């Protein structure tokens, strides 16, 4: 078998489509579990849980490899999808004057490329909004918790505000702001002695909360775009999930009805759960 067939033959292209698509489905579950940290716990506890989770995702070698597989899968899935769609258009140079495809196939199955393209646009803007900020730009403040140390009015001491930095050692570290400098975005150094005192967490929780809040003048626009994109993803998966199994040749009287059922449930529940989170944030 020539090696090129693994990339070039129509069926092999579809295997890649199915494998990357199913991998992205597992990625969705992982991503959703992380996002749920935003709403399952509230207040400082929720903020800490999410920021610690985000740090873990950025620093665990296993997760790092997985995230690169995810980037490559998205690119491969999209490029392969566009190539297939382009070939499919070429296979029918002249269209029917009158066509009734609704009589024989479902709407999502016929619009996979358009649905996928919307998902791709969403992924790109989503990464620009969060991934780019988290990984590249500097302007993410560290996780700071403000506390008030009660003074003693009898002694004439007023209440004192204090800032606690959450550090990766798992503790809050009290710090006077004017006594520290920051290096490499997250490292906290003593100003006078230039000693590393700890490493803080980027406060991504606050970034997300502000992004989808009423304070953000575009918050509602982002929210609507997010929810609509999840609807589009739902349609993509409505056909895609079960389709991937058919492509890989997994079809059986006993199991296929179950796969179809799981596929539809997955297509409804996962995007719905994703969409509910920013809605809850906005409604706070």
């Amino acid at each position, binding site marked *: 078998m020539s090696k090129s067939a693994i990339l070039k033959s*129509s069926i092999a292209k*579809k295997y890649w489509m199915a494998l990357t698509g199913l991998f992205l489905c597992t990625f969705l579950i992982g991503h959703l579990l992380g996002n749920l940290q935003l709403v399952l716990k509230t207040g400082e506890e929720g903020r800490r849980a999410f920021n610690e989770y985000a740090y873990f995702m950025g620093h665990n070698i296993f997760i790092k490899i997985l995230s690169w597989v995810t980037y490559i899968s998205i690119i491969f899935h999209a490029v392969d999808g566009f190539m297939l769609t382009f070939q*499919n258009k070429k296979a029918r140079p002249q269209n029917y004057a009158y066509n009734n495809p609704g009589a*024989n*196939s479902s709407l999502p199955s016929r619009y996979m490329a358009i649905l996928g393209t919307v998902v791709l646009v969403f992924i790109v803007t989503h990464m620009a909004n969060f991934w780019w900020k988290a990984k590249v730009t500097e302007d993410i403040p560290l996780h700071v918790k403000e506390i008030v140390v009660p003074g003693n009015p009898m002694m004439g001491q007023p209440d004192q505000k204090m800032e606690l930095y959450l550090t990766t050692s798992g503790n809050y570290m009290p710090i006077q702001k004017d006594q520290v400098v920051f290096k490499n975005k997250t490292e906290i150094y003593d100003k006078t002695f230039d000693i590393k005192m700890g490493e803080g967490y980027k406060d991504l929780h606050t970034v997300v909360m502000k992004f989808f809040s009423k304070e953000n003048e575009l918050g509602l626009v982002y929210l609507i775009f997010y929810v609509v994109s999840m609807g589009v993803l739902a349609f993509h998966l409505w056909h895609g999930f079960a389709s991937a199994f*058919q492509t890989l040749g997994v079809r059986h009287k006993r199991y296929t009805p179950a796969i179809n059922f799981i596929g539809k449930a997955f297509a409804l529940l996962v995007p719905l759960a994703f969409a509910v989170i920013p809605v809850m944030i906005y409604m706070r």
Partner: protein
Amino acid sequence: MASKTININLKIWRQKNANAKGSMETYKLDNVSTDSSFLEMLDQLNEQLVNERKEPIAFDHDCREGICGMCSLYINGEAHGPDRAVTTCQLHMRKFKDGETIYVEPWRAKAFPVIKDLVVDRSSFDRIQQAGGFVSVNTSGNTIDANAIPIGKADADKAFEAATCIGCGACVASCKNASAMLFVSAKVSQMALLPQGKVEAKQRVLNMVKQMDEEGFGNCTNTGACAVECPKEISLENIARMNREYLKAMVTAE
């Protein structure tokens, strides 16, 4: 049962030859018996055209009983018309209403070029079949009776169902990608399921799919349109089987 007649309007693709441009033309046909088949209705229209000294409409047909796979036609947006599990020759005019406008077009696919009017060239299917749709038989004088080899009932039934494909091309015509996967998978399955087909199994699926791609058919996206429109109700199960066969062959063949 008294036979009813209807008057219909037709919009039919006319194209002089393979290189001509072609266009949809409008015709009016009265007194069409609802008991007549779609092809008989076209015969009636052609008679009318000949009487008017006009060129009759060219369309493919042969057996007119749903077994040869020659007839085609994309009728009102569906291959072999709106009825299920029938070929165009088995489609009756009682499926249409009085005064209805009926669109009639040829199969549309790069691999099925129009020869004239509603006739398309389906020899791409023949070339796919020639690429691997055969089994080796011993012709040295001691030929074994095919029935001498026991075959499980389930496999025999499935192979037979796949073998009922008449090669009409409705699957290609219905598919939004003009994919030939249902046809090719039926031809692969009917042999892959039987012991006689095992000898060439790997090479068969690889060669037939290669030929299918070279002919310019599109890629399957599992819309399922083909199986709905197929006059022989060939199942998508065959496509899944071919996907399995291809995967096996791709990773193990030399």
